[in-house]
């Protein structure tokens, strides 16, 4: 049986660029091999960690705010590095993602391979659509994840 892979798009789709992670998940939904589960998630830490349980490989996508230009794509190998605080303090759920990863690491529960993509956001207004640069980054991240999964499986 092929190893279980999970793609988790984290965020709040009703808060502008905060929905970036979810949009990546929607892009990828039903387009990946059957062993790859694609899930949208609100980012609450304990629930997020439970979602990673049993997966060999995980791709987590979230919005972030650092000092980079909007739409900048950050990629972290969570097995090797701690997520920088800059990506966790800014959004209402971001604490959840960083906490989930660190909690999983501490408890020895992280999948063998965890990649976090963070897309630099610009506007987090209630009810807003994705800003232009973030919308463009969403499709780029989706394609990168598709390639990474393809390369790992074949």
């Amino acid at each position: 049986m092929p190893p279980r892979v999970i793609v988790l798009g984290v965020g709040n789709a009703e808060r502008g660029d905060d929905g970036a992670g979810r949009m990546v998940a929607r892009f990828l939904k039903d387009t990946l091999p059957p062993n790859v589960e694609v899930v949208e998630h609100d980012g609450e830490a304990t629930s997020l960690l439970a979602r990673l349980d049993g997966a060999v490989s995980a791709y987590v996508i979230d919005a972030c705010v650092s000092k980079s230009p909007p739409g900048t794509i950050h990629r972290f190998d969570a097995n090797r590095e701690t997520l920088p605080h800059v990506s966790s303090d800014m959004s209402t759920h971001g604490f959840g993602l960083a906490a989930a990863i660190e909690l999983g690491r501490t408890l020895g529960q992280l999948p063998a391979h965890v990649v976090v993509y963070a897309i630099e956001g610009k506007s987090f207004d209630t009810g807003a659509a994705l800003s232009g640069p973030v919308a463009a980054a969403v499709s780029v991240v989706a394609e990168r994840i598709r390639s990474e999964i393809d390369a790992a499986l074949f």
Partner: protein
Amino acid sequence: MARKTIKVDYLARVEGEGAFKVVVRDGAVKRAELRIFEPPRFYEAFLRGRSYMEASDITARICGICPVAYQMSAVHSMEKILGIKVDGALRELRRLLYCGEWIESHVLHVYMLHAPDFLGYDSAIHMAKDHGDLVRTALRLKKIGNDIMTMVGGREIHPINVKVGGFYKVPSKRDLGSMVENLKWARDAALDMVRFVSKLDFPNNERDYEFVSLRHDKEYPLNEGRVVSSKGIDIPVEEYDQHFKETHVEHSTALQSHIVGRGPYFVGPLARYSLNFDKLTPTAQQAAREAGLGKTCTNPFRSIIVRAVETVYAVEEALRIIGSYEQPDKPFIAAEPRAGVGCAATEAPRGLIYHHYEIAADGSIMHARIVPPTAQNQPTIEKDLTSFVADWLDLPDVELQHRCEQAIRNYDPCISCSCHFLKLDIDRA
């Protein structure tokens, strides 16, 4: 003039965003303000014109931690207007769904947010390094609450299966039976949780609260009951507005509630427990006694024990409901809309939540009012903090910040989740 300002910025998280500020003048606490910058409550406005059927799904969005509370107060209000009474297995299923929410909310708060304060850790992550098994137990226990939400509510966050008159779809007896083994484990785990928190170190801070909660003849209150207080209120929920008033204060976008002619009051686990101890299961009562609690509890720092006791109750209640459940023939009672006014109160994990609606003959909502628990507690929280901080002014800043955060978490406000990365500014003029 000796001036000291304690400011805790960014209480950012699911239900809202806020901060905590204490102003000290000449060695005395002048005022404590819990600043809640919730996005203005557009909900009440944008419910207007929507169908009465949508209120439960729309209001569930207000909170990611306690959506069931909003759903329940909404559907009960609508059912009163429609003149239907949801009873039997459907009523039991709603109670079960609420048990799921209490379990996940209380476990998250007790173990992941509040216990690290008592044990001297910066966060649950730091605590996990020394107490890995404790955190694993907490995660498993919380997930069992989430599993109930998923099974009965359709999904764990913002359930979508609750409907005016009942549910869209009801689980089979076998579906619910699949959770029994986990719930039996959860009962033992919850009892361990009570024992664990009872050994924490508690400051002596008994307060003179007016507790307010629901009270029901036959059961620990979740979905219905009279509104009662520890100082004599005992009314049907329809009279809520005659006794409780909301006012707007400048430093917060949340309205603050008072009892007419008296002042602040306090809703939540301490109130429920103190007004309904006799309705807990024998096991939960025994666990409370062994943890050193009396039949009432007025020390907010001990609320962590009460939450653990309520978790025992919620697990046992879930087991009772599942044990006697027979799948109803229909998932809901059908009824035609009609013009009218209705209100309901239920018990969110954080306390009583009151909804009031007026709908037109075609079922469209004319007016909606939602009074969440944290807004009701805000004046009490500020009063308590003013008193506590006065005793702590001589502490070093780091310790003072720690105490303030711990004290705020006593009330489990929905804004509490982010307290670990709060910033404390002390301004010494």
